């Protein structure tokens, strides 16, 4: 969809990675980078809110009492590894090897599901202990910040599942390559956001 061109067919430029090969592809990748920059700001507001409210526990459990080190470290490792495998999938895509690409893609999805599953059980445990969203401003900010990230990850999983079907159906083309690349940007970005949740919420919560 290169609306600028008077050409008969959208040209495929072989000198650049496949995802950038069509005009439309490079427009969409730029658009998505810009969206990620906007998402940085969205998360920064949630972080600011959490930082301002983190000590307002109103007699409820504090971060120190609540967080469980093995639990959040495991979540972190799952997400870090999934970011790595997602990178490998794109690496294989650039080498035009469909089978390994799909393999790493599926591993990434499974690791993502593992992460979301652990997060849900973590939330369920807190709620079971009476530490729910209505207990204190600290907990409200915690659930909303971490939950927003979890929602992003969940959407990412559904997105990648949809792309899995398209990869199986069409193979690696300029269009599927662009779509997979954009999804991988999203996935790595969520990993980066999690690192800050790990640091600002969990580690800082344990230290103070």
């Amino acid at each position: 969809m290169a609306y600028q061109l008077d050409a008969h067919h959208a040209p495929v430029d072989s000198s650049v990675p496949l995802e950038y090969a069509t005009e439309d592809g490079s427009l969409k990748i730029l658009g998505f980078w810009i969206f990620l920059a906007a998402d940085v700001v969205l998360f920064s507001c949630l972080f600011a809110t959490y930082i301002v409210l983190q000590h307002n526990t109103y007699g409820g459990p504090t971060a120190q009492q609540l967080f469980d080190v093995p639990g959040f470290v495991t979540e972190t490792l799952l997400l870090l590894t999934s970011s790595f495998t997602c990178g490998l999938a794109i690496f294989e895509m650039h080498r035009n090897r469909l089978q390994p690409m799909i393999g790493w893609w599926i591993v990434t999805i499974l690791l993502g599901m593992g992460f979301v599953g652990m997060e849900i059980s973590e939330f369920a445990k807190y709620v079971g202990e009476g530490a729910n969203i209505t207990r204190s401003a600290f907990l409200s900010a915690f659930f909303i910040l971490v939950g927003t990230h979890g929602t992003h990850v969940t959407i990412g999983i559904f997105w990648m599942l949809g792309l899995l079907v398209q990869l199986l159906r069409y193979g690696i083309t300029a269009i599927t390559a662009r779509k997979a690349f954009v999804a991988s940007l999203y996935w790595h970005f969520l990993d980066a956001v999690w690192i800050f949740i790990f640091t600002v919420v969990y580690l800082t919560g344990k230290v103070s």
Partner: protein
Amino acid sequence: MTTHSDVNPSHGATLPSDPKAHHETFPWKHILGFVLSLVLTFAALGLVLSAALPLTAVIVSIVVLAVLQLLVQLLLFMHLTERHGPATHVLTLVFGFFVAFTIVAGSAWIMFTFHATVA
């Protein structure tokens, strides 16, 4: 930013490429990134659990480690430096970080000092 219009590849070679990056047969960059991210994560965890440093020093160090991890993701996984046309996405991202920093630091400053209006 480029001074040429980059809308039409047929007008000239305005889409520079890095052919080297796409002929690698082993994902060195990704493995390096993964190892670095593990090292940085456990370094931060160790700092917190060992409680060897004073509180402020710990918080500053783990935030620095987190920023390093962000760079690992951006540079080694997200192909941030691959340029196909102007580096608009880098500029946008940098401005995004500026705004994010302003929001977090500004909010903390405002909200933590607002009881102190009278002496």
